[in-house]
């Protein structure tokens, strides 16, 4: 909401400076977004009289003017405007002035060989309107030589205030003046209450057939108007509000809306036929609105129509057909009350916003229909002439007079500041509330009647807000929250603690944390989707359309960007949610960590020679380490296949706790996927579902199981087996370890070999087994029995002990 200082002062009697006003507006919740003085942009543009106008010697369409600025030293100015002529008064831009429409600084220049000392300006050049057919013509008595901005009422600071959606009353200058007066910044001037009785009965029938959507429809006809330009003062006001001047009638309706928050509409009576009725639109009906767009309507919308059809999308925008133009002689005025929800629904359905809609859907003053109509009538009669009919009042706006039960002590118990009762009473009264004290058995309370222009106020907390915002929110004293008794407990859940630990561990392992978009392009999302995706109905772009089913694609895209920037080694991770379909139409959002490694694991070096690329074991190492940090029982995990179609079928696996419980998947990305993401060379990745990892057992206590390191030294023995080439080495290691649970504490594979000495279709695996004696050192017989147990267990996997 923008308005000029002089406009505010029409309604507020105040000596306050613009700075004081701005500070107070901020303090009472009307946030000032900016203050601008348009006169600053028009500095150097002055009122000037054309003394003579002669043809340019070298250009048909140019004239050479002699222009008087009142100092007796006429300037020579070259001008191309067809209406430039001797005797006229216009606006001269003098050297140094900056043309508002294009930012060019005026200079002395030669135009086709003739010196020009400035420019006679059009409305468009000064950003004052669209007119560019000729230069501005000012009245003959305009003060020659004076600053044009002052003459045109533009030397007037403009305040831009952000109005919160609960305050339709402040979508008019008058409402802002009322708030400022209540806050002690001046006196609110009364609204003019001139009533125009009307010289004849209204010749048009006005009706509402949709009392729900349009409970009140007030109107009248004014005959014999002249719809020329509105007066300069009104144009200046509208300009300060950021509105263009259109014609006197349109400007007057806009002016009343901007001044009192009261929208209205003026129809050209000549374009209407029969009764003018508020009703539901019929299916299939349409209208070309004043914005020149055509809208298809339906029966959920209220319209104003006559015998021929729809003329107005009620409360939102009028129709082009019956709008007022230059030749309008007779007008029908409409001042109505429309149901806010209906307006909101219609506006949303048509995606049509307007100044009227934003006021009606927030709720206009229910008691301001008749006064609004009279103010409108008075302005039209004054500016456009004509004769008014009697006013017609059909229906009534919803009754105001809402009463709120309020206890003044609430200012302290909710608002945190003690405000004396008298001060509360003064504030509320100044804002238009009426207070009656009610005694109910000892404790008094107030019955506060809410003014008709405050649809937002419906409870005691609203009254507290009114009191403290005017009293001064900054005066509320800080009061410490009471501390909980006893020792502080952890405030993070086990899952949050796990997330933090895993993040720090990943970073400590050399991975860089990225945060990538939750949305992906369709193709990239589909490549990682095993079930229907969540796809946005209104994405901001095609690249941000589907919710990610995995964190890997986002990291792959980040990896590609980094490689494109010349990174040779990319180690990325992200912790966040992936989005799948859940129960009951809700989402299934699991906290996941994903790792992507691309490019070189190690750079070429003097020690190891060529650069080495990442491989699936790097992904496995990250997966295992992060799982361990997350508290997974890593020793019990099984490496199994089926990592998914996104991975290389022979170089990927899952890590499972039991056959069905997949905690992680890892491996080399499928070359097809790498290509889709435009990545060269092997790219490896890992994904861990942080929510399926079981909580550590015994997590409820700090005490650990009792342990004493064994006194006897552990013994290690090596075993080499020939096994079928397709036997997973991990299986052999696992069964070897399980062969004698009492004595074997570890088994570790240290060699895998195929080739000379190993039969075709087989491989040799060498395992170091660690044995721990407990009470006595091992005897030869003990060691022999362990060896036999290992051999037997391995044989079940098809492994033969090598001699």
């Amino acid at each position, binding site marked *: 909401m923008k308005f000029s200082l002089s406009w505010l002062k029409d309604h507020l009697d105040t000596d306050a400076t613009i700075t004081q006003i701005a500070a107070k507006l901020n303090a009472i*919740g009307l946030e000032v977004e900016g203050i601008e003085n348009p006169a600053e942009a028009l500095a150097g543009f002055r009122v000037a009289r054309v003394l003579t106008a002669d043809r340019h010697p070298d250009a048909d369409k140019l004239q050479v003017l002699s222009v008087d600025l009142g100092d007796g030293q006429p300037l020579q100015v070259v001008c191309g405007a067809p209406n430039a002529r001797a005797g006229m008064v216009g606006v001269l831009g003098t050297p140094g002035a900056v043309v508002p429409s294009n930012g060019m600084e005026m200079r002395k220049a030669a135009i086709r060989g003739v010196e020009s000392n400035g420019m006679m300006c059009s409305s468009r050049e000064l950003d004052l309107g669209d007119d560019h057919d000729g230069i501005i013509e000012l009245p003959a008595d305009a003060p020659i030589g004076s600053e044009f901005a002052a003459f045109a009422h533009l030397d007037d600071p403009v305040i831009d205030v952000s109005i919160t*959606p609960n305050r339709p009353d402040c979508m008019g200058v008058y409402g802002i003046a009322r708030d400022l007066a209540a806050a002690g910044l001046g006196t609110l001037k009364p609204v003019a209450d001139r009533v125009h009785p009307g010289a004849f009965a209204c010749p048009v029938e006005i009706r509402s057939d949709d009392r729900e959507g349009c409970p009140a429809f007030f109107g009248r006809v004014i005959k014999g108007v002249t719809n020329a330009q509105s007066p300069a003062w009104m144009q200046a006001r509208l300009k300060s509000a950021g509105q263009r001047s259109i014609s006197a009638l349109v400007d007057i309706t806009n002016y009343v809306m901007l001044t009192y928050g009261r929208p209205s509409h003026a129809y050209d009576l000549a374009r209407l036929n029969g009764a003018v009725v508020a009703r539901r639109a019929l299916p299939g009906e349409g209208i070309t609105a004043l914005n020149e767009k055509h809208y298809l309507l339906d029966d959920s919308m209220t319209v104003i129509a006559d015998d021929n059809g729809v003329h107005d999308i009620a409360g939102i925008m009028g129709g082009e057909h019956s709008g007022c133009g230059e030749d309008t002689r007779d007008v029908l005025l409409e001042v109505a009350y429309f149901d806010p929800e209906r307006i909101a629904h219609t506006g949303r359905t048509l995606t049509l916003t307007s100044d009227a809609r934003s006021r009606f859907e927030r709720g206009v003053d229910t008691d301001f229909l008749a006064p609004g109509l009279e103010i409108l009538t008075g302005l039209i009669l004054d500016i456009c002439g004509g004769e008014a009919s009697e006013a017609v009042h059909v229906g009534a706006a919803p009754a105001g007079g809402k009463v709120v039960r309020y206890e003044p002590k609430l200012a302290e118990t909710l608002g945190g500041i003690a405000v004396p009762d008298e001060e509360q009473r003064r504030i509320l009264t100044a804002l238009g509330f009426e207070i009656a004290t009610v005694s109910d058995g000892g404790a008094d309370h107030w019955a506060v009647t809410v003014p008709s222009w405050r649809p937002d106020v419906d409870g005691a907390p609203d009254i507290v807000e009114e009191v403290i915002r005017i009293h001064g929110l*900054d005066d509320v004293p800080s009061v410490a929250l009471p501390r909980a008794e006893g020792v502080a407990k952890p405030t993070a859940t086990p899952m949050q603690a796990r997330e933090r630990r895993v*993040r720090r561990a990943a*970073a400590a392992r050399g991975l*860089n944390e990225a945060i*990538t978009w939750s949305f992906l392009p369709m193709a990239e999302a589909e490549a990682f989707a095993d079930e229907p995706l969540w796809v946005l109905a209104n994405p901001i772009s095609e690249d941000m359309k589907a919710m990610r089913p995995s964190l890997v694609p986002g990291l792959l895209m980040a990896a590609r960007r980094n490689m494109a920037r010349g990174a040779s080694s990319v180690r990325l991770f992200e912790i966040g949610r992936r989005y799948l379909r859940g129960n009951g139409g*809700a989402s299934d959002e699991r906290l996941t960590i994903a790792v992507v490694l691309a490019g070189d694991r190690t750079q070429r070096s003097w020690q190891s020679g060529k650069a080495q690329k990442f491989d699936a074991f790097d992904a496995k190492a990250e997966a295992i380490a992060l799982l361990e940090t997350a508290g997974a029982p890593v020793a019990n995990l099984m490496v199994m296949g089926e990592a998914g179609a996104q991975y290389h079928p022979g170089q990927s696996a899952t890590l499972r706790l039991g056959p069905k419980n997949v905690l992680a998947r890892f491996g080399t990305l499928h070359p097809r996927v790498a290509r889709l993401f435009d990545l060269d060379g092997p790219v490896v990745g890992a994904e861990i579902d942080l929510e399926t990892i079981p909580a550590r057992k015994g997590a409820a206590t700090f005490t650990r199981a009792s342990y004493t390191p064994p006194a006897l030294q552990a013994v290690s023995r090596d075993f080499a087996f020939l096994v079928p080439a397709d036997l997973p080495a991990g299986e052999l290691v696992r069964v070897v370890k399980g062969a004698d649970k009492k004595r074997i504490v570890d088994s570790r594979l240290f060699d895998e070999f195929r080739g000379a000495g190993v039969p075709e279709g087989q491989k040799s695996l060498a395992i170091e087994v660690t044995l721990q004696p407990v009470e006595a050192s091992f005897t030869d017989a003990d060691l022999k029995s362990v060896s036999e147990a290992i051999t037997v267990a391995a044989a079940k996997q098809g492994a033969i002990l090598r001699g």
Partner: protein
Amino acid sequence: MADTDSLRAEALARIAEAQTLDALEEHRLAYLGKKGSISLLMKTLGGMSPEERSEAGAKLNALRTEVADAIAARKDTMEAAALESRLASETLDLSLPAPEMPMGSVHPVSQVMDELAEIFADMGFAVATGPEIEDDWHNFTALNMPESHPARAMHDTFYFPDADEQGRQMLLRTHTSPVQIRTMLNEGAPLRIIAPGRVYRSDSDATHTPMFHQIEGLVIDKGIHLGHLKWTLETFLKAFFERDDIVLRLRPSYFPFTEPSVEVDVGYSMERGPGGTSRRVVGGSGDDDGHAWMEVLGSGMVNRRVIEFGGLDPDEWQGFAFGTGVDRLAMLKYGMDDLRAFFDGDLRWMKHYGFVGLDVPTLSGGVGVPA
């Protein structure tokens, strides 16, 4: 036995001249071996009279010990020299690069979220979460934004074509506030929570990204009022920026889910940073010379209807809520100037603005990480 002196002189001279361990061993055998000259002399003691034997024995023993010590000393010297010379041949150029262990990094948003969790833990706030794919009831209706509410349209909401089983429209949450409702419904009162997380608005320009991070705070208890809100926000911002001169300005505002509603500005000044860029530095009153106010938080006393939607009795419980942007807090504290870079994954940016894994914010060690 007159020849022991010359034997001694000869033995010590030869030992001193020995150049190799082998030569030294030869000398040891020649003097101290079974048939060594000193050993042979020792054997002659048996044929002497007790008087002679006691004198000659003492002499010979002293000689044997002296020669043995000389051999050991010479051996030590030679071994030390050998080690010296071996080590000299093993010299490495330690200016060569060592194997690299790359350093990783924690994203500033994660770091700041951990900082916030730490600060609020000290005030007894637990961390709560909720879904990002929300339904319109939790995101709007229960926060006192019925369908026709103009504030709904101001949220630039991303919608899905889907509805859940209750017919609720699915959308991407536009704020972390639905977590208020979920937590009240699940846990009841009293409550002190913060809810950090991703939120989404259909908005993209230099200072807006369609995804960003918010943190929500909620206190529901008995007798909580606006003064408590003010203290909490002051304490939080002072702890976060680690400055005592943080000055807040409260302005009345409007949010459908709070009543009264308060916007919070913080005073700041512009300071010249490295490279001549100027940046906002929080501190001081915005009304001071060279200072201004900047909006940092939205807050207010929880609307009675919202408390009811949370399944609580607003006559019994009241409280406050606040929300702010985590990315923006990170930018203000650590000096990043482009929000879009947060979500690009540029390794160069991460190395510059990221945090070392072990820079864990703690109250005792400092919540922030100095530049």
